[in-house]
């Protein structure tokens, strides 16, 4: 693999996935949906945190998939789980009770306070695009220890105003979560294919803190639908190292 790994350029998607995986280094448990979040969590178990407990909303706790699952209920998740519980128990005893350290969420729209829309584009009654809906996101975001949003960086996704607020990130800014009685910290990072945004400690407004290799601030601003807050000292994402890259490519080739 090593040679092959060298022989190919690192893609933005790979950088994004690795950046997400690294965030799980110190987590005990992670809640994940399908797609890139699932890939990142499996990668983290391979490289950064072998004891990481993967929890899927299908009720599988401690799943150890060898392949990247297509659905959150693939047979391999059930076969490799430490425990399988009903969906009711999952949301009441595990998610709602706040037992999960980190949750990965995606979104079709995200605003400057990391509130998420997965319901509709356009008007609710007459939507331009009907999206899948809430799923587990609202309660996952309110109860899990922290939320990491993984989204493609484009003006269509990073919008000034959500068409529908499906999931509360930081609401109208600092204080909203407290007023709502949420137990979790909410979004602590938004990881895109261009870089990483984190909420400002005081205002909770998303701030660009990290750029992936070869990306500059102007490009990120261009692809963000509001006047982006940028950290004074902007860091560069450490590129995927060989071990991470080999593991990720090997995983995706399974």
């Amino acid at each position, binding site marked *: 693999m090593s040679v092959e790994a060298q022989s190919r350029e690192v893609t933005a998607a790979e950088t994004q996935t690795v950046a997400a995986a690294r965030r799980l280094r110190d987590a005990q448990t992670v809640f994940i949906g*399908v*797609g890139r979040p699932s890939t990142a969590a499996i990668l983290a178990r391979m490289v950064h945190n072998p004891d990481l407990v993967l929890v899927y*909303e*299908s*009720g*599988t706790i401690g799943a150890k998939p060898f392949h990247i*699952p*297509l*659905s*959150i*209920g*693939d*047979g391999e*998740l*059930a*076969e490799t789980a430490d425990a*399988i*519980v*009903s*969906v*009711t128990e*999952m*949301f*009441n005893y595990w*998610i*709602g009770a706040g037992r999960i350290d980190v949750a990965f969420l995606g979104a079709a729209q995200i605003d400057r306070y990391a509130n998420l829309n997965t*319901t509709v584009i356009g008007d*609710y009654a007459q*939507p*331009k*695009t*009907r*999206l*899948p*809906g*809430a*799923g*587990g*996101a*609202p*309660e996952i975001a*309110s*109860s899990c220890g922290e939320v990491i949003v993984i989204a493609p960086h484009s003006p269509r996704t990073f919008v000034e105003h959500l068409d*529908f*607020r*499906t*999931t*509360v990130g930081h*609401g109208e800014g600092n204080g*909203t979560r407290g007023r*709502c*009685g*949420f137990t979790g910290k909410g979004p602590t990072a938004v990881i895109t294919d261009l870089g990483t945004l984190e909420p400002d400690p005081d205002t909770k407004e998303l701030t660009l803190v990290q750029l992936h290799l070869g990306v500059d601030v102007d490009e990120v601003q261009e692809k963000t639908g509001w006047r982006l807050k940028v950290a004074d000292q902007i860091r560069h994402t450490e590129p995927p190292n060989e071990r991470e890259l080999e593991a990720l490519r090997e995983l995706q080739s399974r």
Partner: protein
Amino acid sequence: MAEVTSLSEAVAALVDDGDSVALEGFTHLIPFAAGHELLRQGRRELELIRMTPDLLYDQMIGVGSARKLVFSYGGNPGVGSLHRFRDVIENHWPHEIEIEEHSHAGMANRYAAGASNMPCAVMRGYVGTDLVAHTRVAGITCPFTGEQLVAVPALNPDVSIIHAQEADRDGNVQLWGIPGVQKEAVLAASRSLVTVERIVDELEPKPGGVIIPGWVISYVAEAPGGSRPSYSLGITERDNDFYRFWDKLSRDRDEFTAWMREHVLDREAVGS
């Protein structure tokens, strides 16, 4: 005691036009064969209830059997959109339907309240979202702490239909693997049908096995492969390729209609 009969007889006896019907199965054990039999028997004006509509309800909505849809996540898991689901909401094709959507936590608690014969369930959630303005949820205060919580109304379908791996001849059912909300759905419903991969002389309790006694089930019908393209853990595998195939096929109304006629409507019932 559940009556063990054929799928077509069970569906004919159980479901009327206009009924509220929950066909549950959370990714795993989705009762496709039973849903297809509903369509073959021409049931209409149904209130279709499912946490995850999945391909089955995409098909049922697309052929026009639904008056209302109650759900919490209408996507093709890991693939993308459900195109018939989108088309009926975005363009009212084949006709307009009513929708009621919740979060997964809300739907799961609604089923649990229904199974407990309670009028509602109390939980945390929905707060601060636009869902509150568009669904049935209400504030309720904890009398001990004063904390503001939310209540969701119990879900009590006229009919619940699930798929399981096994039943015995008395209609006692065993399913294993991801149990979803199937037990709750059956216990919450006025009438119920469980289709099974196989009928056995005696149930042998399995690790992770969930047993539903026959005396809380109306009908049991054998339907081998009845969860395809979903799966029955240990017996069939999830057909992930079909889920990808559906994404392409279902984009086009005519292709969808032709496929449904050829592969569902003009077919014989499984196990009949």
